[in-house]
C-alpha cells in the first residue's frame, strides 16, 4: 500500500516539475510544426491528424497486430539465441586464455561485417525465410552481448579473486560467486544495447526479405512491422508508413524499458548508492 502511495506521489512530483512541462511543450510544438508543414504542403509527410486516424483504424485490424507479433517473435528469438550463445562464449573467452586466443580472432574478423550485409547469404543458407530473418537479428544482438560480457569479466578487480582465494574458494566457487555476479551488470548492458540493435536489424531484414514466409499469408499488413512499412510504401499509403515507424519506436522503447527493469531486479547492488 505504501508503495502505491509512493508511486502516486512520485508521479505527482514529476507532473508538477518544470522539466516535465518543458518536455511536453517541446513535443507539442514539434507536432504542431509537423501539422502546419504538412497542411501547407511544405512537407509531403502526412500530417499527424491523418496519421492518428489511420492509427485508430489499424488498431482494430488483426493483421496489423499480427505484424507486431511476428516482429516481436523474431526479435526475441534472435535476441534469446544471442544471449544463450553469447554469454557462455564471452565468459569462456574471459576465463580461458587459450579459448580467447582461438576464438577472438575469428570473432573480430566477423564483427565488422554489418548484420544487414548477411541478409542475402542468410536467405541462401537457411532453409526458411523465417530462420534467415531470425539469424540476422541474432547477429545484431550477438556482438553487443559478447563484447560486453568479455569486457565485464575482464574488468573484475583482481583483489576480488585474491580475497576469494584466501578465504578458501575453489576455481568453480570463484566462477560462480565472483565472475558470474561480477559480469552480470555488463551482461545487462549488452542485452539492452543488443535488443535495440535487434529491432533495428529485424525491420531492415523484413523489408529486404519480403516479410518472410508469413508475408503472403498475412497480406499487406502481416509479415512483420518492417514489411508492413515497406508494403505501405509500395502501396502508396503514406499514413501507414508513419504508423509503422511509430510502432517500431514504441516496440523498441518497451523492449529496452523491460530489460532495464529486469537489470535493476537482478543487480540490486547498483541501485541508489
Amino acid at each position: 500500500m505504501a508503495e502505491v502511495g509512493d508511486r502516486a506521489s512520485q508521479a505527482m512530483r514529476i507532473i508538477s516539475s518544470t522539466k516535465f512541462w518543458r518536455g511536453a511543450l517541446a513535443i507539442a510544438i514539434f507536432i504542431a510544426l509537423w501539422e502546419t508543414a504538412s497542411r501547407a504542403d511544405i512537407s509531403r509527410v502526412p500530417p499527424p491528424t491523418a496519421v492518428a486516424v489511420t492509427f485508430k483504424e489499424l488498431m482494430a485490424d488483426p493483421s496489423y497486430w499480427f505484424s507486431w507479433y511476428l516482429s516481436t517473435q523474431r526479435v526475441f528469438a534472435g535476441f534469446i539465441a544471442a544471449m544463450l550463445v553469447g554469454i557462455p562464449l564471452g565468459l569462456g573467452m574471459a576465463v580461458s586464455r587459450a579459448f580467447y586466443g582461438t576464438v577472438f580472432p575469428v570473432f573480430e574478423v566477423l564483427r565488422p561485417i554489418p548484420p544487414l550485409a548477411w541478409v542475402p547469404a542468410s536467405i541462401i543458407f537457411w532453409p526458411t525465410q523465417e530462420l534467415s530473418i531470425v539469424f540476422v537479428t541474432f547477429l545484431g544482438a550477438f556482438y553487443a552481448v559478447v563484447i560486453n560480457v568479455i569486457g565485464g569479466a575482464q574488468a573484475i578487480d583482481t583483489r576480488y579473486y585474491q580475497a576469494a582465494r584466501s578465504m578458501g574458494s575453489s576455481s568453480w566457487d570463484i566462477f560462480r560467486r565472483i565472475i558470474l555476479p561480477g559480469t552480470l551488470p555488463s551482461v545487462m548492458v549488452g542485452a539492452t544495447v543488443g535488443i535495440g540493435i535487434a529491432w533495428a536489424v529485424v525491420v531492415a531484414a523484413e523489408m529486404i526479405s519480403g516479410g518472410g514466409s508469413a508475408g503472403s499469408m498475412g497480406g499487406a499488413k502481416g509479415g512483420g512491422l518492417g514489411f508492413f512499412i515497406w508494403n505501405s510504401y509500395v502501396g502508396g499509403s503514406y499514413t501507414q508508413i508513419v504508423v509503422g515507424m511509430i510502432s517500431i519506436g514504441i516496440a523498441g522503447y518497451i523492449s529496452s524499458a523491460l530489460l532495464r527493469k529486469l537489470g535493476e531486479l537482478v543487480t540490486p547492488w547498483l541501485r541508489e548508492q
Partner: protein
Amino acid sequence: MTIASVPQPSIHSGHLARSGSTEPITEIVVSNVSKSYGPMKFAKAVVRDCTFEIERGKLTVMIGPSGCGKSTLIRLLAGFERPTAGTISIGGKPVAAPGVDRLVLFQESALFPWLTTFGNIMFGPHARAAAGDETRSRAEFLLDKVGLTAFRRKYPTQLSGGMQRRAELARAMINEPKVMLLDEPFRGLDAMTKTLMQEYYAKIYEETRRTTFFVTTDIDEAIFLADRILVMTNVPAQVRAVLEVDLPRPRRLEDLIENDNANLIKMEALSLLHEEAMKSFARGSKAAADFIEAYAKRIQKPR
C-alpha cells in the same frame, strides 16, 4: 608489558589459547626473499634479499617510503605471487599458494559489491562449505562486534569508508586466520575515521592477540599499533632497522602523545625514514643527490 584485557573466547583462535607463555614463537619466517618484475634483462627488483621474522601473537608493523615494495611483500606472504628467490614460511610450512591460514585486508575495500554486508561475511564459510547455524550465529556476533548489525542487508556502496573497513575486518575474522596481513588498511579514510579505526583495530588485536603483519606509511599509526616496527629501506625493499615498541596495552591514542618512550621511537623511526626518503628523492633528481652529498660532507668536516 601487561596483557590487561581478557580475550573473548568466541573470537579467540585456538592456537592463541597458550598466550600465557612468555617464550616468543616465530610464526612467519621470510628469508633472503627477492622479487623482481619484468623479463630477465629488464627485470626491476622490488624486493632484494629481504629477511625478517614475525612472532606469533605479536603485531608487527612494517613502515617505509611509499613504493618501497611493502605491498609486494604482502602479496608474497599471502601467496598471490611467488618470490623470485628465497623462502617464506608460515607456521613452519612454506608458502606456496593462498591459504585460509592468512587473510589480507587490502588498501581499499575489496568487499564484493554484489553481496550484502552479511553475505560478504559469510563468503568464507560458504566457500569452505562450513555455513552452518553455528557459523551464522558467529557472523551475527561479528556483525554486532563491528557495529554493523543495522547494516547487515546493505550493499558495500551503501556503507561509509569506515563501515566498509569494519565489514571487511568481520569478513576476515570469521575465517579464524592464524595470521592477518593488512596492507595500509586505513589509507584513504578521513582523519577522524582513521583515528577511530586505529583505536578499534588496536582493541580487536588486544582481545584476540592474533599474529598480525601491518603495513603502513604512517609513523604515528605504526607506533600506536606495533609491538615491533620494521623500518624498510627504499626500493628494493630490505629491513633497515627493527624497533621494539614496549608500550603498555591496552593503548589509547591520547596516552601516546605525552609518552617519552613513544616520542623517542618516533624520532628514531623518522630519522631513518627521512634518510630513505631522501635517497628515493635523490634517485629521481641530480640536484637532490648533490644536496645530500654536500650535506653529508659538511657534517663530517668538524671531526
